[in-house]
């Protein structure tokens, strides 16, 4: 095979890639915050004493965990506007699909983390007069989150990579821009290689940061 690599056209279009990267990061941050935040609420819902809340939370998890994100994004983009009279742009459709899916997954991670904390911790907090919310905030979650950081990191990485699915509704992110460049310059090999490299270059330092966070939180061991 005598393929001659030529990255010139890719680098000539760096501005398009920069716009794509900005779109990817924007979608990532929104989905990370929404997905992990909503996930915690759903996890608490699954532990609620209120039956309908428990049931709804479980139904949410099972629905969004067991349907493909790609289908969800397409559904929010093309199908939802038929049912409700609202305009849903590519950004919003991608946010809904990725966030709700991630919420379902991270809810299970949170639930596992909370359940892994010894009952004695709840009791000790109650015994000095804390209410349920204070106990959760001050005693249970700090310990639970420490234990689930590796799993949450996994989830975060997954969210970052899932943002490429938004290209299916033509949301401007890295992959979408890459497709554009590739179709104009006929250089898919170079473009997709660069796209993959950009993901690695952005993600790896973030993952290293979570390792540092893990070490910082382990100082009480």
């Amino acid at each position, binding site marked *: 095979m005598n393929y001659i690599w030529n990255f010139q056209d890719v680098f000539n279009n760096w501005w398009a890639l920069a716009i794509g990267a900005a779109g990817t990061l924007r979608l990532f941050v929104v989905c990370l915050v929404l997905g992990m935040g909503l996930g915690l609420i759903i996890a608490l819902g699954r532990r609620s004493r209120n039956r309908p809340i428990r049931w709804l939370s479980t139904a949410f998890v099972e629905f969004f965990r067991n349907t493909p994100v790609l289908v969800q994004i397409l559904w929010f983009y093309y199908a939802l506007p038929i049912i409700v009279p609202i305009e849903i742009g590519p950004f919003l459709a991608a946010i809904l699909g990725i966030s709700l899916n991630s919420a379902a997954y991270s809810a299970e991670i949170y639930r596992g983390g909370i359940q892994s904390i010894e009952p004695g911790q709840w009791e000790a907090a109650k*015994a000095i007069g804390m209410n349920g919310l204070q106990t959760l905030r001050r005693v249970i979650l700090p310990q639970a989150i420490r234990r689930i950081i590796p799993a949450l990191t996994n989830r975060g990485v997954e969210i970052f990579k899932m943002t490429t699915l938004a290209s299916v509704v033509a949301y401007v992110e890295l992959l979408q821009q890459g497709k554009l460049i590739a179709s104009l310059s006929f250089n898919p090999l170079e473009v997709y290689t660069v796209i993959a490299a950009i993901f690695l270059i952005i993600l790896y330092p973030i993952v290293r940061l979570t390792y540092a966070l893990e070490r910082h939180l382990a100082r009480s061991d």
Partner: protein
Amino acid sequence: MNAPVLRLSGFGKHFGSLNVFSDVDLDVMAGDRIAILGASGSGKSTLLRCINVLETPSEGRLEIDGDLVGEPSRSGDMRFSERELCALRQRVGMVFQQFNLFPHMTVAGNVAEGLKTVRGVRSQKALERAVAELKRVGLADKAESFPSRLSGGQKQRVAIARALAMDPEILLFDEPTSALDPALVGEVLGVIEQLANEGRTMLLVTHEIGFAYHFATRILFLAEGGIYESGTPDEVLKNPQRPITQQFLAEHRRFQF
């Protein structure tokens, strides 16, 4: 005549059809130190845990300083609101067998936590108070350490300081030395003894019968689902009147020297 600090009447707990204890009547006056003895499974710990409602009592009344805790529901059993329980537990502190320190907080952080989160005391003030409580249990120098660095005895002393920081009217000890190396039991009992000398009102579930004898103003012996025998340490421990108590004490004396 003052009202009792703690009054239980017709107090009982059952899990389904299993009756742990029933018809417990008890008046605890300020300064009383009550040791609760009994065989494993006699309901000592459950009784103690029903007093601060970590375990919900099934029947009967619980009064602190003459105030009824909980509200009787239509079916007759007591209902407790979270707000009421939080108030109750600030007045009735507890020390656990397994210490249950918060591992992610420093020693001082553990002791200050209730003041900060429950009472809303400013962080700096709460920490000063925590160090003062740690001094009482002889651990001021460990204030900045994490619990994982402490011995079992030290952990339990921190747990006692954590309970004391809330300035409770009553302290409950649930087998505070049962999880400790024999060599570490003494330092914890020493702290409890010091609290006794300060005139604190305490209830202690224990297997340390020797300590119970010196510590308690009154002994409750639990058996057959209730208070089986009670009285002064001399009455119950030196001169038990009923067969299960006699047998229990004989068993305990078997390997003494």
